[in-house]
């Protein structure tokens, strides 16, 4: 178990770096897929089977496909690689510094008494349990989430129906 955890964590980190570091967006998407896979395994270790499945199906299966579509749409005839130096001065170094500072602070925040998870009931994280919780205790959130999706769809349709927009 521990070994699995560590392998997955390493993969997680490495692919994350690959995502942000790749020149070509398609490479980033591929790395991201592997990242999601590792994350799904981590969910599995956390007794969140349903979530692991959802992660693969929706995130990797739908959203990243969407990303690929858009990349294709945008890159017909052009190279979607960043050309030229950055116009923003004092962006790179402060970003890294801030990031490392954030990491240090977060790490300082999470060390402390080791929290061991107590024994969980066997149906913890099962689909059934999940569905029951979703549709009873957290019904309201479920319904609102539906609205959010509806509005997102509406927004996208409206934007797509627009004529040329000059920026």
């Amino acid at each position, binding site marked *: 178990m521990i070994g699995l955890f560590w392998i997955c964590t390493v993969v997680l980190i490495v692919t994350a770096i690959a995502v942000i570091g790749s020149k070509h967006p398609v490479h980033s998407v591929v790395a991201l897929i592997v990242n999601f896979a590792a994350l799904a395994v981590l969910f599995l270790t956390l007794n969140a089977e349903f979530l692991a499945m959802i992660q693969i199906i929706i995130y990797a299966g739908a959203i990243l496909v969407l990303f690929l579509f858009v990349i294709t749409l945008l890159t017909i005839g052009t190279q979607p690689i960043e050309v030229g130096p950055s116009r923003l001065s004092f962006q790179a170094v402060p*970003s890294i510094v801030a990031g490392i500072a954030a990491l240090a602070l977060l790490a300082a*925040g999470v060390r402390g008494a080791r929290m061991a998870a107590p024994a969980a009931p066997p149906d913890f994280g099962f689909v059934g349990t999940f569905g029951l919780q979703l549709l009873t205790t957290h019904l309201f959130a479920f319904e609102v989430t539906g609205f959010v999706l509806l509005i997102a769809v509406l927004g996208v349709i409206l934007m797509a129906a627009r004529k040329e927009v000059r920026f």
Partner: protein
Amino acid sequence: MDKFLATVPFTILFLPLFGAIVIAIVGPRVHRAGAAIIGNLSIFGAFVLTATLAYTVWQMPATQQAFTVKYPPAWAAHPAFWAHIPPLTISFELRIDPLALVWMLIVTGVGFLIHLYSVGYMAESRWYRTFFAYMNIFVFTMLMLVMAGNFLWLLVGWGGVGLASYLLIGFDSNRIAAVAAARKALIMNVIGDVGIMLAIFMMYAHFGSLSYKVVFANITSASTNTLDWIGIWLLLGAVAKSAQLPLHTWLPDAMEGPTPVSALIHAATMVTAGVYLVARAHPIYDHAPAAAMAVAVVGCTSAVFAATVGMAQYDIKRVLAYSTMSQIGYMVLAVGVGAYAAGTFHFVTHAFFKALLFMAAGIIIHNLGGEQDIRKMGGLARRMPLAFWTFLVGTLAIAGIFPFAGFFSKDAILDQLLALHHPILWAFATATALLTAYYMFRLLFMTFFTGEYRGDHEPHTVTARTMVVPTVILAGLATVGGFLVLPGRDEISRALQGAYTDRGTLPAIGEINWFVSGVTTLAALAGIGGAYWLYERAPELRARLGNVFAPVHRLLANAYYVDTLYHWIFEVPVLTFASDVAKYIDPEGVGGFSAGLARATSGVGEAMRGWETGYLRRYGLTMVIGMVLVLAYYLFVVHAGTSIGMR
């Protein structure tokens, strides 16, 4: 009667001020004659009231002739009139005694005559009304000075006359020379003010009060050393105000002011304030012989100094200015040795003949279209007889020829000098009398005789009556004024007795000391003779002497280069410093500071522009930095010391 005595002094004091205020408010709206009328009326009214008051007071027994009048009871509670800073209380009090009355009479009387004279003299000035307002302010402050009942109000009047002098010297503000002279006068006067202030501080420290009554009553409680110092500081003030050595250089320059100003302020009244001060503070000098001797020495040296310089001047008014300095030296010398009556007597006669001389000179200058250089005059005796005869009267008076006023007063001083055992001072004073006669008659000859008229302008010969009448009146006073003091009828001493009750009987100055008078008259005649010979009879001799003594002549013409000395010691460093500050420190320092503020503000603005770039990633960075800060705060401050946070 008592009510009269209690209220009239205040009326006298404030009438000129009231006149000035009325001129200021109403003057611009009415014809300019209105300002002249108001000015003259207010001073004349003050004079009449003063005369009445004086008459009343001199009817009273001598011991009662001195009294202090405090603010009228109706104003008793008004805080503007007195200062109460515990434990010091200064009230607004006026002291009326014969000494003050003599000064008041001269200030208002001669002041009124000069006001009248100004109506004609200043007729061409654009700021006619302002002139009368300023003159009224001067009379007010001078009265304040002489009527004050404590040293603080004396100082107020002291400063006030300095201000009036500044305003009036620089009256023609378009001329740089006038403005510079006014500034110089003010600066030197202020040096004197410092002296008086130091004396006031010492007085307060020792006596706890500044009121004449208190200070003079307890005079013996202070040590001689203290009194010496108080006397020296008061002397500093007197030196500045009365243009004695070494603070005299402002007086010749003050002649840039209009002639009436020179007559009133720089001849008859303001410059005598130093004499008044010593005469008023006589208990201090009676008990501080060293300070008194210092006063006498200053007066004597000033008298001699000025007389020598006057021999080499070519501007009418400058000669008169140096003669004023010299005559005031006489007065200061007199009060320095304790001859208060003689000094006051000379003040009175000097007011008469000096104002007269300035007025006559003013008539000449006015009729010659502004010419003041006596080398450009001559032969005016026939052309301007009025000016000539009045000027002659004045010159005879100042030279001390019997029976004119100067004879009596000058001889009184010289007599007292010998009587009080100061032979050296007497010798110098007599020598000065010789020089005085010489240079005054030199002035007379060069102006009115020595051949034909050498000037450029054709002289007018018609003079306004308002200018003629006061001049003639003063000529009359200069003639008969001496008879205030006759053998057996010493009016002056009798008059002043009331002020000096603590000294016992004042020495009578009416007795003619034949030795002194004889010597003095001989000296005067020698001076006149010398002037006559050199200027009328033997101009070749004069030219040859001029060549031989050229360096001496130059020294005298430049007043021993004192002015130059002061220029290099004081003016040059200060002006260099000021111009350096203006050129370098001000633009860089002060200007730099303001510019720096502006630059800092705009710099901050520039820096803050960096946040409104419109770049998405920049916004993100800002957010992340904020997140880091919040995290740090959360860890280090909120949860510090717990297991979650940091120590």
